[in-house]
């Protein structure tokens, strides 16, 4: 396991030491409190734009970024992360203005200047485009990226996932004085990925950004295991080029079947809602039917979006697909939560919608890579698995398979500890 982590370890490492507590007053005015930082980022970005060109030319010539320029870029990457972490409620304290290392609860570890391939340096801008598109969906993008995109402005590079998590977290933090862990983790993940993209653009590293949530949030504690979680073979990265090329048309029969099944599932869901509201527990037959439906949906989307390789079956059978879903047995559910299920699901829908976009982008990128290499990139596969898992949790919550709210954390939940032999006895 350690070896695996070492293999996937990225030189740009996110460090999260946030305790989730939030000051209600600063949360309420968070966007306004960020104004001095927006101005400072804007000014700094103009400088970075100029320095980036010099740094690029120097790296092209010498093969290594000059140390002073590298330090300047590192400070900028770190500073933008701090600011976005603050504005997006991923961290609580007001950040400093110089990007100090190790001073902020959401920080980034950056590499020392090292040799970089001249080819990837020369082609850095076109190479970064796919990662940039993903970063726009997931996290924040710094000022120079906006400048490079021909829009001379800074600050407003908010990624959609981080922004939606901040929006939802704003209400939660105001009420509870704490940021929900799932939303914080999702926001941190988006910002961490964007920091990697920025570091790549500014030649801090020549390692391509990785969207693997497990690697990005290596310093974050895993949440407890959700009753709806993924099982199967996470190492299944092989992709058949033929089925990849024809993936969309191949999935169409499944999509037609899914639409037909969805009509029945919605009807069954309404009956299940009435029955659960009355009896407190979903009827076993409906639970089984809807479990199959939710699992089938996951299989189809995993196939369509290239998160898995084989053609799935048509009945949502458990244990047959490499990206499978574990669902709970029917159990008692809180009637209040059951009664207001649709309303309660609305925030989760927002997050799910953004993750749906991320899934789509990941699929398009995977399509090209898999056609060439015959395998899916590890990071994109895990991002897809995260989006699919969250979608399945939302579905399971809506169809009353569980009353556990979907957990937005990109990290797969940790299974409960095995009871010690003495305790078991």
């Amino acid at each position, binding site marked *: 396991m350690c070896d695996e982590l070492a293999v996937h370890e990225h030189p740009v490492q996110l460090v999260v030491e946030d305790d989730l507590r939030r000051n209600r007053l600063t949360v309420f005015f968070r966007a306004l409190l960020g104004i001095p930082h927006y101005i400072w980022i804007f000014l700094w970005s103009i400088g970075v734009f100029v320095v980036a060109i010099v740094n690029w030319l120097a790296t092209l010539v010498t093969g290594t970024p000059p140390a002073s320029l590298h330090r300047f870029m590192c400070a900028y990457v770190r500073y933008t992360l701090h600011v976005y972490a603050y504005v997006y409620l991923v961290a609580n304290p007001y950040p400093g203005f110089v990007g100090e290392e190790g001073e902020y609860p959401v920080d980034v570890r950056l590499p020392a200047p090292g040799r970089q391939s001249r080819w990837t340096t020369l082609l850095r801008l076109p190479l970064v485009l796919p990662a940039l598109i993903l970063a726009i969906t997931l996290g924040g993008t710094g000022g120079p990226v906006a400048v490079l995109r021909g829009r001379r402005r800074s600050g407003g590079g908010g990624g959609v996932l981080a922004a939606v998590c901040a929006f939802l977290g704003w209400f939660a933090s105001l009420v509870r004085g704490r940021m929900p862990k799932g939303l914080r983790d999702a926001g941190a993940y988006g910002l961490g990925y964007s920091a990697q993209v920025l570091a790549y653009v500014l030649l801090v590293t020549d390692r391509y950004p990785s969207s693997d949530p497990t690697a990005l949030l290596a310093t974050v504690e895993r949440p407890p295991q959700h009753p709806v979680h993924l099982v199967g073979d996470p190492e299944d990265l092989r992709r058949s080029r033929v089925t990849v090329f024809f993936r969309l048309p191949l*999935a169409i*029969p499944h999509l037609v079947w899914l639409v037909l099944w969805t009509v029945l599932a919605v009807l069954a869901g309404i009956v299940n809602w009435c029955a659960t509201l009355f009896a407190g527990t979903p009827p076993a037959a409906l639970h089984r039917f809807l479990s199959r439906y939710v699992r089938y949906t996951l299989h189809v989307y995993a196939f369509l979006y290239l998160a898995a390789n084989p053609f799935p079956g048509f009945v949502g059978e458990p244990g047959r697909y490499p990206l499978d879903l574990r669902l709970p047995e029917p159990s008692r559910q809180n009637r209040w939560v059951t009664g207001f299920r649709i309303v309660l699901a609305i925030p989760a829908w927002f997050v799910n919608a953004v993750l749906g976009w991320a899934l789509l982008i990941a699929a398009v990128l995977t399509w090209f890579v898999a056609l060439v290499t015959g395998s899916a990139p590890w990071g994109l596969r895990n991002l897809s698995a995260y989006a699919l898992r969250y979608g399945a949790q939302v579905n399971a919550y809506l169809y009353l398979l569980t009353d556990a709210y979907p957990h937005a954390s990109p990290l797969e939940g940790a299974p409960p500890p095995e009871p010690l032999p003495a305790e078991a006895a």
Partner: protein
Amino acid sequence: MSRALARRAALLAVPAVLWSAAAWYLWQSRVPGSLQLPHLDSRAYFSGRDLHAAASFGRLQEWDWLLATVAQLVALTLYAWRGGRFARESAAGPLGTGMLLGMLGFALVWVAQLPASVLELWWQRRHQLSQTGYFTAVFGDWLALGGQFVFLCLTLAIVMGLARRLGERWWLPAAPAFVGLALLFAFVTPWLLGTHPLRRPDLLAVASRLERAEHVQHTPIVVQDVHDVTSLPNAEATGIGPSRRVVLWDTLVDGRFPTRELAVVIAHELGHLARNHIWKDVGWYALFAFPGAYAVARATRRRGGMGEPEAVPLSLLVVVVLGLLALPLQNAISRHMEAEADWMALRTTRDPAGATALFRRFVPTTLDEPSPSTWEYLLLENHPTIMQRIAMAQAWRRYATSTAQSP
């Protein structure tokens, strides 16, 4: 002759007799059996330039068809040989795996035929017969594969489901099931076309008169917009029962054809409906479906039968080969019905000059060869040739005159 052999012969003879009787019934036509088409010289009707342009256009089309067919056969032969390996790309059960193998077979044929498709498009664009861009055509075809896959999956679900239950006798219930699907498809097709009502009062008046004459009153005449894709003029009769209608492409009613010639087109399509040609189409399909399904069942026996996914690649090859073998016969049947529709149009409009003018206009507008080569006629022509159609107009004139003069 042993008793078993006699019984087997009787078992074969009964369906053969029934098949022949049904075929004879479906072959019945209003075109008089004694009608002799005069031999006409195409040079008397078309300029040398038109004939040269049509011949030049047709030549590459023929080669293109040959290329596409060879590519299809090669791709399917290779796929029948090695395609079973793709079963490992499936986590579905036998039916789902069979569907995947079927779809991949179609997909590979699409890839193999792509050069021929692009060549055909280039040729049509060069002759201003198509406006479709290359990207739109290729990408659209790629997406359209999805629609084909849905029908293929449905077909394979029926075949494999029955084969897993009934073994080798699956073809007995499968053939009627396919006929039922063909009927359903014939019924719903008009609603899938995306048409709008004809708005030309002159043509509506003509159509109303022709409908009364052919006893197919209240048949909607609708227009399908295709001018973004092609400049070719065309029309079709479609649907059965309440869904039947005549569809005119907007390229036909864009002013290039005078009302008199359009009346012949409408009368021809109404003739199809009056003579129940859609029903007859389904009838012929049924006659081919039984022996075809039986042949597939026999051919896939060594691969474990159609209940096994590994038999699917071979079954695709068998279906395509059978289709190619049956092509001359199918084209002959189609030409026979088209000739009857022409005859109906002549009887209704009583305007052989209008029909002749229409057919003459087809050559410069569609670049159809007036007298194609024999092999092209047998394999590719599902309508009578232009010269045959003009000859029929002449023959009708003589026939009408002789029947009017006869006591």
